[in-house]
């Protein structure tokens, strides 16, 4: 697939802090590219430079081979991490306003059908729930039939059901052929939606590939997960080099049978044992030594 957006040697400094440090990558047309990293990793600064909101100190961003210009503005759909809407106007009015900004648009009724906006279409924007606002912001980002869609942590703060709904809607956008650039710190979200991911830390990209390819390249083992209450930490750490997080002991092993035998030998109850493949969260921990949701 052709490259739609190319980022080369991007650098952005804020005083003594280098927020983005020599970042380069390409995004292919009709793919979903995920930019992952903990808070402060530099992913929002990177995406905002790609959106044309911030100017890089050095480096280059090319959209379809040209610098970001009017064509990019007309063809990009953008959903920020947080957006305030003008007050005292209704959802329909703000959508009418945005539709007048662009030469080619999707009808408001079609967007309202697709993102279930009808129930609050004539409601003041100040009176929307979190889920309703995210749906509206997504609809606003799609009003210009974008060829490339930027989603900066679109599901942060949403309840699990709203999050799943939004994933479904993003999948539909992808199926219609739009290119998507997504930042998130939810690994499940990245795995579900992205064809390609780049993991950022301290302003640099530390890994970049398809999610499964990254996992295959870094891991040939699995995780045996036991409830933390069933295996005292001194035993887990001494016998298995276990890592304790989220209320579980995580034992990384290349030989599950041998590990289970050893656990039985130590009289560790296995009622709540779970064996899982290594995931992106493990990968991030492996690469940076930090938990992703830090």
């Amino acid at each position: 697939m052709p490259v739609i957006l190319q980022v080369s040697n991007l650098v952005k400094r804020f005083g003594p802090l280098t927020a983005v440090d020599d970042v380069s990558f390409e995004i292919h047309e009709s793919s979903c590219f995920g930019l992952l990293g903990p808070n402060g990793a530099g992913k929002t600064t990177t995406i905002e430079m790609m959106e044309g909101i911030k100017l890089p100190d050095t480096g280059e961003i090319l959209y379809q081979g040209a610098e970001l210009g009017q064509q990019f503005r007309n063809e990009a759909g953008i959903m920020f991490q947080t957006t305030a809407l003008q007050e005292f106007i209704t959802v329909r009015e703000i959508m009418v306003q945005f539709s007048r900004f662009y030469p080619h648009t999707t009808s408001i009724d079609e967007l309202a059908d697709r993102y279930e906006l009808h129930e609050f279409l004539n409601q003041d924007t100040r009176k929307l729930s979190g889920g309703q606002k995210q749906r509206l912001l997504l609809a606003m980002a799609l009003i210009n039939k974008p060829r490339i869609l930027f989603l900066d942590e679109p599901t942060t703060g949403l309840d699990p059901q709203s999050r799943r709904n939004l994933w479904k809607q993003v999948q539909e956008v992808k199926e219609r052929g739009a290119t998507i650039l997504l930042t998130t710190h939810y690994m499940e979200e990245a795995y579900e939606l992205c064809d390609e991911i780049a993991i950022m830390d301290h302003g640099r990209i530390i890994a970049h590939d398809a999610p499964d390819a990254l996992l295959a390249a870094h891991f040939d083992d699995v995780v045996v997960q036991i409830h933390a209450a069933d295996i005292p930490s001194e035993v887990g750490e001494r016998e298995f080099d276990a890592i304790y997080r989220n209320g579980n002991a995580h034992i990384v092993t290349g030989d599950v049978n041998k590990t289970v035998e050893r656990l039985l030998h130590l009289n560790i109850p296995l009622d709540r044992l779970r064996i899982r493949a290594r995931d992106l969260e493990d990968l991030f921990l492996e690469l940076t030594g930090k938990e992703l949701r830090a």
Partner: protein
Amino acid sequence: MWNRIYALFVARNLEFVRDRSALAWSVLLPILIIFVFAYAFTEDNPEKFKVGLLPGSEPATAAATFVDTRYIRFIEFDEAPGNLHKVERHQVDLLFDPATNRYWINQTSPNGYIVEKLLVAAYADSGESLQKILVEGDEIRYIDWVIPGVIAMNIMWGALFGIGYVIVRYRKFGVLKRLSATPVTAVEFLCAQILSRLWLMVAVNVVIFIGMDLFVDFRMHGSYLDLLLVFTLGSINLICCGLVVAARISSEEVANGVLNLFSWPMMFLSGVWFSLEGAHPWMQKFALLLPLTHVTDAAREVMIDGAGIVEVSDHMLVLGISSVILLFIGARIFQWE
């Protein structure tokens, strides 16, 4: 381009009209101020007598005796012809030239009558003779004088805070950031804000003017169209001031401070409430730097003296040129974030 400006224009109008408390406040405040100042303070002017004094050699004994009279405020004028209208309009009670012993007086002025008695008494035993020159004209009541200033002041508040505060709030909460991610340019956004604010302010002030005209009998000698042009250009100028203030600030507190820094000196040094006649020369010169001075003076000349647009062209020129400069600066330094 025009489609985008129109979209922003409509959205801002809806915001303004639906924000009932702000709308009510922008209409009620000037009316309240006019009633308070027109009726509460009209009869309590602390400066009872004002005499214009023309320059010349050291006044003779009789003239010196008169100039030493206490409780009369002597205001130095540079020449007679350009200041006679102040005697005509009762803005000064008498104009006196000690060099030639001539004085100008409006016989319908009660204060002028008393001051003339004092002047004649000072000359009584001097052997010198006074030359009396009569001028004619109607008295300007305080309410006639203050209304153009109050409307101009209302325009100033509406322009500075209406545009400055709104843009800063947009920036603070990320509304501008969202707009910057669309094809809307800074110039389109600023034009929409100016147009929206301009027509709303003109409409609100026309309503105030008509409303007051129904209840208060004030002087309107000039053309309504000329007055509309004065207030429209004044509004554009003050809106552009607000744009410059709001071009980069993202804190409402800082914006509030800077807007107050702009508005309060204008409020008191632009001659809205009291004439700067007799004020220190540097203050009079400083007042000429303030756009509100030119709006107020031009509106007064139209409403009180019946001046046409040509006669107030000096004020219009200052307002027009400074508007272009301010708009250019505002657009150049404007930042979405």
